[in-house]
Each structure stands twice: as C-alpha cells, then as structure tokens.
C-alpha cells in the first residue's frame, strides 16, 4: 500500500488549538474540551470537516480552543448560526456549544425550535447553573433558593428548567446527560450524539469552582441511569421527572425525520434575485 496515501490518525491533542483556555482552574469546561477532542479523534474525522459554533459566556470560548473550524457567535444565537452553516454545508459535522444561560435564556427560543426542526446538529449545553462570565447570577437552571448572588440575595424564587425535559417536549430526537468529572463517559455520549442523524442534545453537568463551589461535590452524587436508552417519549419523560438531574446517560433516542433545506439554497443568487424583481 502506498504509505503516502495513508491518512494520519489524529490524536485528541491534534484537535486542540495552541490557545490555552482562560477558564478558572478546576472548571468542568476543561473536561468538555477533553471529551470533544477524544470523541473527534475516536471518530477519525478530518479537522476540516468539523465546525464548532458557540454563543457567548465562559463555556462558549470553547470554539477557540479546538483546531476545527469555529465561530464564536452572538449571545444565544449559536444554534441559528449552526443551522445556517448546516444548511449551506450539509457535509460538515456541526457541533454547537454554550452555557445554560446562553442556550436556555438568551437563546431559549432558538433551542426549542432547533429541537423540533431536527437538523443534524449536536448541541452541548455546559450547565453550571450560573452566569459565570458576568460574575455569578442566577441562570434558567439555578435552583430557586440559591442565595449567593448579589442580584438574588433571597434566591430567584423561580423554578429551574429541566433541560432534558424541555428538549423532549420540544421534539429533540436524541437527549443525553453527561458529567465533566467523567470525561471519558462524556466522550462516549458525544460520539453517539454525533453519529445520530438529527438534532442531538447533550447536557454536560459542568461545575463552576468560582461562583458555585458547592458543585465540586457533584462527583459524589452523579451516577449512571439504571435503565437503557428509551425510544418512547412518555417513558423518557417519566424518567426525567423521576430523576434528581444527576443521572447520566443517553435518555432518549428516536428516528425522527431530519430537516434538510429544500433545493432553494442551491439555485444561485441570480435565480433568487429574479424572484424579487418587480
């Protein structure tokens, strides 16, 4: 065999950029970066065939720390950008990443519609239940009685979203939860998510050592779901409701029709412009 024609196997390190992350030491987001790079190396994907789109926030800096194509986008709009990219370049593996605030508050509407649209994207929410970059405010996944923020000294009093439940209700075809204390387990989930045809949602429990130091104890509470992955949304809903939010694994997977844009995007600008001629 012609040795020159052999593709060089990439290692996880090859999927990291030369930039050193500015995340706080101890942050769970490092493990998400590890899991992504391990998953990409395992899948043997060429770097030029992968794009990582992110929003705004600590976790959204992740796009710069990989060596695949990346776009550090607008707050809450990572899914909109990624959907556009996937429409134009369906051949790419498109990963989308951000935090709980970026994805479920500022980008909440994009999230639910991305779930129901079921484009072939993998969306990772790095969930630390806090806005970290702006120095620690309650996010949509923060418990109502969290009182350590100056903005909500008596707690927000608002019940948090259940990201997995929200994704299920909105029609996502793949829903999983991983934990950054187990980067290898998270990598396995990410491989399954990227291989899934359709919108795959992965909630990564990612402790914030600076504004939520109590989350460093999550490693004592996280465990794998006892049950196998369900393809029944009712069963998955029951499992999500019965869980304390600390169980990991692929909760739900089903084959729903994958949204692909019509041929319109291939028609060329001339044809499109002619349709607007008065």
């Amino acid at each position, binding site marked *: 065999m012609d040795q020159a024609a052999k593709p060089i196997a990439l290692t*996880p*390190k090859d999927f990291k950029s030369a930039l*050193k*992350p*500015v*995340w*706080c*030491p*101890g*942050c*769970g987001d*490092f*493990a998400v970066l*590890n899991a992504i790079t*391990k998953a990409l190396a*395992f899948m043997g994907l060429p770097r030029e065939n992968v794009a990582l789109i992110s929003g705004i926030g600590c976790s959204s800096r992740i796009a710069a720390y990989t060596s695949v194509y990346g776009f550090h986008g607008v707050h809450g709009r990572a899914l909109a950008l990624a959907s556009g990219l996937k429409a134009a370049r369906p051949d790419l593996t498109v990963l989308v990443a951000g935090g709980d605030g970026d994805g479920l508050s500022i980008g909440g509407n994009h999230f639910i519609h991305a779930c129901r649209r079921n484009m072939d994207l993998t969306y990772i929410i790095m969930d630390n239940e806090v806005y970290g970059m702006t*120095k*620690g405010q309650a996010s949509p996944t923060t418990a109502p009685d969290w009182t*350590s*923020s*100056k903005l909500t*000294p008596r707690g927000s009093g608002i019940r948090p979203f259940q990201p997995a439940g929200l994704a299920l209700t909105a029609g996502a075809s793949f829903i999983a939860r991983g934990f*950054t*204390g*187990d*980067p*290898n*387990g998270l*990598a*396995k989930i990410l491989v399954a998510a990227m291989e899934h045809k359709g919108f795959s949602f992965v909630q990564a429990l990612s*402790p914030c*050592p*600076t*504004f939520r130091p109590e989350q*460093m104890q999550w*490693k004592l509470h996280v465990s794998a779901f006892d049950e196998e992955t369900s393809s029944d949304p009712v069963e998955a809903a029951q499992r999500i409701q019965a869980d304390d939010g600390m169980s990991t694994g692929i909760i739900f997977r089903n084959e729903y029709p994958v949204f692909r844009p019509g041929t319109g995007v291939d028609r060329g600008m001339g044809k499109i412009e002619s349709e607007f001629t008065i």
Partner: protein
Amino acid sequence: MSLAKKITDLDTFLTYSVALEEEAAGRHDELADMMEVHNNPEVAGTFRKLAHYSRLHAQEIRDHSKGRTLAVIAPWDFGWESMEGPETADISDVNYMMTTTQALKIAMGNEQRAHDFYHEISKLSPDEAVRALAAEFADEEKEHLELLAKWLAKYPESGEEMPFDPDPAHMPE
C-alpha cells in the same frame, strides 16, 4: 469482576499501562497550562515536570512493548475503576492559588493509586507473566512515591485550605 482479573495477557496489560501514563501526562500538562494562565508559575512548573516524568514512563513502557501489538481501546472502554485512569489528577482538585506542596500532594495521591492498580494486578491477574510485570511496575510506582516524598520535604507544610485571596472573584455583599 475486578479490572485486574480481566487483564489476562501482556499486550492488554501494556496497553493499559501506556494509557495510564499518557492520560496522566496529558492532565499534568493541562494543569500546568491552567496555572500559567493564572500566573502561578511555581505550581505550573511543578505540573510541567510531572507531565515530563509521566511521558518518560509512557515511553519506557512503549519501548518495553516493542514487537507487540498494543490494542486500540476507546477511552471509555478501559473500564477504570474510577472515572479516569488511576494516575490521572482530578481537574476539580486544583485552584489558581494552590501551592507547590498541594500540587505535590495531588501527585502523590495519583502515584499511590497507580501503585495500587499495579499491585492488584500483580495479585489477581490470571496470567503469570502479567502478574510478574505488574509487580515490577508497582515497585516503580513505589519508587516514584518515595521521590515525590523527598521533593515534598523541600517545601513547607500547607493544609487543604487555599492561601488567602485578597481579591476573590466572588464577594457577596
């Protein structure tokens, strides 16, 4: 079933050993990067040295494996008894203000777990050659522990608590 009992041949044992050291090296480098970014050069240097030693050990094991075919195992299929390899430091154990003493104590914990891993294989593997090599590796890890203890003795004792931070990131009113 204990992982040690599942390691039934030398190729598998060496595959695990290389993975253990390479994962540890990668994590030490990562911790060194964190400390560099957060202007803790002394601890960054310590983690960088530890990464270097882990890489040397990985290379020694690779040299030992010449002529053998090491298996390709997905990171999640190793089935480590903790969430990562036994010699891999836990990311959540570090802080940007940590001292060299605290870093070395983390390293000693890693070496102790690596020693225990090899020691268990040396007792429980069904293969005699694996048991013998695992006993050698366990002894090496014990030597590493002794070297770390000497290194640690050069630094003042410090407890679990992080040094006083005059400008904490979060100061609720």
